[in-house]
């Protein structure tokens, strides 16, 4: 957001403290795993729900996924609460993001930042409201905040990757090798939505221009609408897909349809 790294670091620390989420874990899960290995099973942590949901056809089907397109809304609503109060702590102590990936060891300063930011969050956004307000009122405020945060990730950017329009690529070989490079890969599992809506661009922070966000994460999202046609034209020339949903509702509907499809037992070959 700012031109220099120092200002961006301060904003990153403040934002993670206010949201209650660990900056270190987010950087590894999002910047390293999700942005590099988008929709690749075993690598992209956005596909990992600790067995609660089947978000990719590459994941094994289990009977408990029946009806996931209905109960998914409840899980999304509580996912920030789980991240802030449970998952971050489990990952901090076990140094494991999911069954597949370990977290690079944290330095002493990174551990200190993790603990301090969690304590500041708990003091300001949990303890203070409960001290000043009746418990039910404070609880409602906390739930409103966390449920809004929980719903904003899957419905703000998750629908851009886990929908019917995009791909869940897999490759063979040891090690699995992706031809065409990272940038070409990004075009297959990523979709834009509602790019004609300035309101969506404003409220989502440009995440509706998900393709441009993935290819140019260091460019301010205020420019995504301008560079979108350039990216699209270049993708067309190189024979790469440029997935797009006209509206946000279309993206959500596609996401729910995919979840319903994945909830059904796959037919045996």
């Amino acid at each position, binding site marked *: 957001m700012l031109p220099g790294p120092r200002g961006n670091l301060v904003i990153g620390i403040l934002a993670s403290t206010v949201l209650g989420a660990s900056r270190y874990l987010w950087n590894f899960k999002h910047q390293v795993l999700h942005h*590099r290995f988008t929709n690749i099973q075993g690598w992209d942590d956005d596909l990992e729900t600790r067995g609660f949901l089947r978000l990719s056809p590459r994941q094994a089907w289990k009977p408990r996924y029946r009806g996931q397109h209905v109960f998914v809304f409840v899980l999304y609503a509580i996912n920030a609460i789980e991240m802030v109060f449970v998952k971050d702590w489990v990952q901090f102590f076990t140094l494991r993001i999911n069954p597949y990936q370990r977290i690079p060891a944290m330095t002493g300063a990174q551990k200190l930042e993790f603990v301090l930011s969690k304590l500041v969050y708990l003091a300001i956004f949990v303890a203070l409201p409960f001290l000043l307000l009746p418990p039910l*009122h404070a609880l409602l405020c906390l739930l409103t905040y966390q449920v809004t945060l929980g719903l904003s990730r899957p419905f703000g950017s998750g629908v851009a990757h886990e929908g019917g329009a995009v791909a869940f690529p897999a490759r063979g070989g040891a090690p699995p090798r992706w031809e065409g490079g990272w940038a070409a890969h990004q075009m297959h599992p990523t979709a834009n939505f509602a790019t004609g809506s300035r309101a969506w661009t404003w409220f989502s922070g440009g995440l509706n221009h998900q393709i441009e966000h993935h290819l140019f994460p260091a460019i301010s999202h*205020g420019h995504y609408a301008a560079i979108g046609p350039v990216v699209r034209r270049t993708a067309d020339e190189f024979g790469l897909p440029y997935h797009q949903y006209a509206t946000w509702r279309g993206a959500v509907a596609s996401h729910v349809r995919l979840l319903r499809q994945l909830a059904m037992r796959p037919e045996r070959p």
Partner: protein
Amino acid sequence: MDIPVRSNGPQRIAFDAEGDFLKTVRARVHEALQGCAPRGNPRQLRKAAFIAVWFLASFALMLAAGPIPARCCRVRAAIW
């Protein structure tokens, strides 16, 4: 891009060297943005300041709002 990991999942993953797509799209985007700062433009800073004020004001209002109004308590009592 080829990063080794210590995991019980796939041990490594490898992307081929970047082809012409990334080079071309980068060059075109930088050309399209000539004359604009790619980061730190004033509109973004104004937006960030607006959101920060909005967030802090909402939180302060919430703390200052006091207890839940009596009519809500009556509704709650009726439900229970």
